[in-house]
């Protein structure tokens, strides 16, 4: 199995050449990222008050996606650890929620999760009764009950997205996708929200990186820039900055090179990026390649401070 080639975008610096397609990688990455913030119900795509049987069902569904045995002897790189982490989390949620004693303790510690959100009050008793009937009917029909829950989640997800709260939107839509893994609409929405969410986070990270660099915390800055570059693969500035700081802090030269190259690919006419790439190449000992980049860069901007440094008059080559 090979990694699908995506000619429209530069090769992502941190995407690994593993037996998982890019969509799955993105899905696992983002779920792994929000894992810590999810409660036991959310992790399984359930609403508070879900029954034992619902928990079991959701857990089995999720296991099918995240149990490491589904990827037996596959090359998963760092994703193996992520998948294990996700599985451990859903399995913990299942263990707590299906054990009456542990569930009681958990719900006591988190009173807000004790039951489903209250229904709005009805005008008349008659209507209340009818609505109750309807609901029981829905509850009896698993598909409809699921459909209802699905619509609710999608609506809430869309609203949150509109309000700019992409984190919450992602959580809701993720739950929806767990309920109905084959629904294309949810999938598209999820991809979009994930994308926007990542762009938003990327710009935050970029800002954080700049601040860290200003106060001289280069390691933190490098981490932020790399994070930003990974989340927003079209951001040349983030890539270039990440490369620069990786170089300065002496970390992962291969990654630095990939990032610097990406910056150049994204904005081929910017001398800054060219210089960055040249410096990285030079540091890696690839002097010839570095030299070409310096020349290119100098052509673009002969007044660049870096160019001046570089274009010292050549020593005389005369031997006599």
């Amino acid at each position, binding site marked *: 199995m090979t990694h699908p080639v995506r000619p429209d975008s530069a090769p992502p610096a941190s995407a690994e050449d593993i037996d998982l397609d890019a969509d799955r990688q993105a899905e696992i990455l983002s779920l792994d990222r929000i894992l810590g913030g999810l409660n036991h119900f959310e992790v399984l795509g359930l609403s508070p008050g879900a029954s034992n049987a619902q928990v079991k069902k959701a857990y*089995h569904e999720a*296991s099918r996606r995240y149990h490491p045995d589904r990827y037996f*002897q596959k090359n998963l790189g760092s994703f193996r650890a992520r998948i*294990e982490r996700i599985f451990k989390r859903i399995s*913990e949620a*299942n*263990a707590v929620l299906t*054990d*009456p004693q542990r569930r009681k303790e958990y719900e006591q510690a988190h009173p807000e999760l004790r039951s489903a959100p209250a229904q709005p009050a009805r005008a008349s008793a008659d209507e209340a009764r009818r609505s109750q009937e309807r609901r029981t009917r829905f509850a009896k029909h698993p598909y409809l009950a699921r459909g209802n829950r699905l619509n609710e989640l999608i609506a809430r997800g869309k609203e949150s997205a509109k309000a700019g709260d992409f984190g919450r939107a992602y959580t809701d839509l993720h739950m929806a996708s767990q309920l109905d893994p084959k629904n294309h609409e949810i999938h598209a929405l999820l991809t979009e929200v994930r994308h926007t969410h990542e762009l938003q986070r990327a710009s935050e990270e970029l800002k954080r990186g700049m601040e860290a660099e200003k106060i001289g915390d280069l390691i933190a800055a490098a981490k932020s820039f790399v994070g930003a570059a990974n989340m927003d693969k079209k951001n040349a500035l983030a890539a270039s900055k990440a490369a620069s700081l990786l170089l300065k802090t002496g970390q992962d030269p291969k990654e630095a090179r990939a990032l610097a190259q990406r910056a150049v690919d994204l904005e081929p006419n910017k001398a800054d990026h060219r210089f960055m790439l040249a410096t990285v190449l030079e540091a890696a000992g690839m002097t010839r390649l570095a030299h070409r980049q310096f020349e290119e860069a100098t052509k673009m901007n002969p007044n660049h401070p870096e160019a001046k440094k570089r274009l010292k008059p050549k020593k005389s080559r005369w031997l006599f």
Partner: protein
Amino acid sequence: MPEREPVVGIDLGTTNSVVATVRDGQAMVIANRTGQNLTPSIVAVAKSGKRLVGQIAKRQAVTNPEDTVYASKRLIGRKYSTERVQQYLKTLSYRVVPGDHDDLRIVLAGREVTVPEISAAVLRELKLDAEAYFGRPLTKAVITVPAYFNDGQRQATKDAGKIAGLDVLRIINEPTAAALAYGFGKNVSGKIAVFDLGGGTFDISVLEISKGVFDVAATGGDTLLGGEDFDNRVIEALVFGFAKDHGIDLRKDRMALQRLKDAAEKAKIELSSTKEVQINLPFICTPPGGGSALHLQRAFTREKLEELTEDLCEKTITIADQVLGEAKVRPDQLREVILVGGMTRMPRVVEKVKKYFRREPCKGVHPEEVVALGAAVQAHALTHEESQVLLLDVTPQSLGMAIAGGYARRLIPKNTTVPTSTTELFTTSKDCQTTVKIMVLQGESEIARENELLGEFMLNGLREASRGEVEIEVTFEINSEGIVSASACDKETGQQQSITVTATGGLTPDELGKILESQSDYLMEDRQLEELNSRKEQLEATIREVQDLLPKVKQITGGSEFGVDALKSGEESLHGGIEALKGRSLAAIVHSTDQLTRTLNAFRGVIQRVGSQDP
């Protein structure tokens, strides 16, 4: 697309082993080369030095009790000094001695052999059977173990697989495997119990099946409770009766013991279908003071067997009840009870199961083959992406660490789905304590030393402070391969230590390496033996030829220069060849054959020359 590499599931049983595979969406048993589905888990070395495995080994057991190893599964991964092992060793007709690290070594044809090597011999036999079936090499297999096997026993089983040249994809639990076979290809859902009473062990597991996901809720058992124990009760009764009549303890005679064992097993099996059997063992021994040989003749009824084994049957139900409690199910909530293992053929066992579970047990599975079939299903599921089968298995015993006062603190409770990990905070128990020892324990006891010690390590260089001030974070982990690891971290300094637990009761990595390396190894002999024999024949023929020519050459060359040297070296080679023939060293035999061939050529040359001179 090239055909996929074959994968198999192997039930490495106490009395019998079975190999199975999935073909065209169906799990099926691979018959051995003699056409049987069951291969006895018996390894022997015949008087001729030939290694025997399976039915052929079983057949000669009575005449060769000391060099016939049976039920070695009951010894695998165990420690010599434990009381249960010591008790058990008394019932064996072969000799077991302690190894270097409290492991067990079986004395077979005068050599000490590790238990995994014996298991490996059985596995290799099954491998050859499967290869004969597939018509090509086989390396990948899932092997089953009793659910209640501890880490050491599992590791030792894995070692056995390695020695046999197998890539062990996974070790899975027998009752779980049975459930996989039961639910495979059917659209079943609901909770089931698997009641597995085999030759050596008892296991019970409760699972929830839903659309191909097999979720183990709880599992438990006893690794020393099985058909062997039922046999031993019968043997005891026979021995006791004989001692009362003749004042002779038959257990002292290994040959008699082996015959008793055979007879007891046979009687037990027959009593599942008849009410009474005759046990007839003529010439079982000769009285020490001389006189005519004594015979053992006795009628044995089903009631008698049931009376003798009532407590064993009762014990299985006690354990079953406990495990159902842990799984939080009542017997009436179960959809089905599946009986596995030859011992569940005993009417009394079925009766007990019926009474406790309040239902007829499932009859749709073959009790002796279902485990191997399930192992094949799992092997298939792991290697075939399109498979819908997913097994969510649990750790059968709790993992914990030793804490001050000799107690054990549980970090991962039993019946936790794997992979899993737990982190807990510990503190120092003494003032100025700079070192802590993390001892990884497996078992249910609150007392540290009553648990199995899986491994230990130290975390040094802690800050000197009064007790309770230094915080140490301990993480235990079981990964999806079932490998246990532990790490400890000083919260303040970030200093960290960790171990991955490897076999303690089985082989050390060194020992395993040595066994894998040494091609001259005893258990690798089957292939070599053939070569050895053909070389021996060749040597023998050469020796005969040289011996034939020798007098003639002596006569011809008598007194001449040639005679002194050539005759002397020729005689030396001849002597060497005869010696080599007595031994079993392939190298010596080949060397001698070469030497003698040269001598032979020289002799022939002399005769030819002399012959041409002297018409």
